[in-house]
């Protein structure tokens, strides 16, 4: 077998740098597709989309005295985006629950470790595919309407269930609040950081991730 003939070699030698140059010039054009602001600041597609939320009063302490009492609320996130306002506001529905016992709050993402409380606030955006899940006070409703899951005795209390793909979460799991106990979800729901100011429970931040 002969080696490379002259013509093929020259073609190859010319083609490689030419293709490289085209790729080098064309790749920044992908930024055209990039949805957020400040397009030249970073190469990362996602990073400077960190949203900012407005603090909101989720509930009053006096409303959540009983174990398993809960309240729905909505937290507004602002994502940078090419709109006339320069941002897009997205609602993050949440639920705040009074648990019957204290758990360690899952606030590592906010830099808070080992804080215990019996008040916990979850984003209701299912960490699986983004549906809005429900807080279901009666576990029998979970068995009837959410894919036939029968909880073991120690979990026979209020649970969280997502109607879309039937993930079930236990908000009061002692090791990991919001643990996935059935269904396809990969992790517990994202959590809110809250502060108690007098009688008000004020939500300040929500864990990032997912599609709102």
């Amino acid at each position, binding site marked *: *077998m*002969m*080696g*490379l*003939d002259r013509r*093929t*070699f020259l073609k*190859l030698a010319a083609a490689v740098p030419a293709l490289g140059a085209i790729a080098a010039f064309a790749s920044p054009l992908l930024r055209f*597709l*990039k*949805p*957020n602001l400040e397009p030249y600041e970073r190469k*990362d*597609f*996602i990073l400077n*989309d960190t*949203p900012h939320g407005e603090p909101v009063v989720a509930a009053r302490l006096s409303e959540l005295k009983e174990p398993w009492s809960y309240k729905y609320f*909505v937290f507004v*996130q602002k*994502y940078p*985006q*090419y*709109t006339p306002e320069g941002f*897009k506001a*997205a*609602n993050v*529905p949440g639920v705040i629950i009074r648990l019957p016992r204290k758990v360690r709050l899952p606030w590592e993402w906010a830099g808070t470790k080992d804080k215990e409380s019996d008040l916990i606030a979850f984003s209701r955006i299912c960490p*699986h*595919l*983004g*549906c*809005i*899940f429900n807080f279901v006070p009666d576990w029998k409703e979970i068995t009837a309407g959410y*894919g*036939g*899951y029968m909880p073991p005795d120690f979990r026979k209390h209020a649970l969280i269930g*997502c*109607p*879309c*793909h*039937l993930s079930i979460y236990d908000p009061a799991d002692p090791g990991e609040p919001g643990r996935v106990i*059935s*269904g*396809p*979800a*990969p992790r517990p729901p994202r959590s809110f950081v809250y502060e108690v100011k007098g009688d008000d429970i004020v939500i300040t931040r929500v864990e990032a991730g*997912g*599609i*709102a």
Partner: protein
Amino acid sequence: MGSALTDLWNQIKEWLRDRKERLDLFDETKVELQGNPLYLLGPMFYLFWLIVVISGLLLMIWYEPTTTGAYFSIVRIQEEIPFGWLIRGLHKYGADALIIVITIRIYRMYFAGEYKKPGELSWMIAFIGLILGMISGITGYLLIWNQRAFWAAKTVLTVPVYFDELPIIGATRFGSMIAFVFLGGPAVGQGAITRFYAIHFGISVVGLILVEIFFQRTRRKRLNMSLFSLALFTVVLSLISWKLPAEMGRLANPDKTPLPIWSDWYFLALYQFVKYTPPLWAGLGPQLLIVYGLIVPFLDRSKGRRPLERPFFTVIGLMALIYFLVFTALIMFNIAIIGRDPPIILLLTIVVMIAGIMWELSYRRSQVQAAQQAPAPAPRPRPSPAQGH
């Protein structure tokens, strides 16, 4: 080594030239087989595509692509604009008919072995056509901005986010990037509606231009259909639009997930699959199916074209068809027991695939034995594709 590369390159060029010469997009080279209605599917594909594009262009006159205006502009088209119901009905039911026709045609090509030489390229284009049709479908029905559309867009585009869990690719956050580029941000909003509108329009228009170039070059007839069939299909679509006005659903509400959550009918089976599997696999599974569809002409080296002459591939095709129907039925009746179903389905799949392999092996063994017993068999006439069914 260089000449080996050149050889390979030449072989690929040769292969492409050969397949391009015999490329068949809408069964226009199989007109003589149209006594079998399955060979009318190609021209129907072209007809419904034209109907959908023309009615779509007319809808663009009144449609308003904004989160606040979209839903009400379509209500207006449906209820106030003269013949708006007809144009919208033709667009919606034409699109449904298009997907049905492409799907049945794909199964015909599969079971009749039409993807074998020289039909490889025609098969691959038909298969890509189905995928583009489904993408066009999902980008199209978000434009209504009703509950079903909103939640379908949200769940479907959360799936690629899980590709960030993959090794190597994951580190580049490639998956989130797909979702961001389609949605125009990390939330389903105005950005998403604008981009979906562009994609929905672009797929059909670019596709139609390419098809027109193909017809110009090959000088073949575009629509190989009798005037009677053409009139019949158009009238039936119009009648359905009149008797069964296309649905509106409820206005999208980002704070409330509908129960049960549905999508267009051709995605329902996929929704059931998503309930059963971890989310990363829910994204990778359909991709494996697409890859299988694209490379099946090169996987299937069997000689015959009839289904019974290549048992393994027939079993795979039947299994895909049955899963599609059963999963669709399960989600429509809202049956899913997460703790019980997935292992049963996995076991069933493995058993059926092993049975398919056993069948293939025993078939091949019997072929070899038959060849040994009769050393000089008369060459069998090659069956025509029409006999495959």
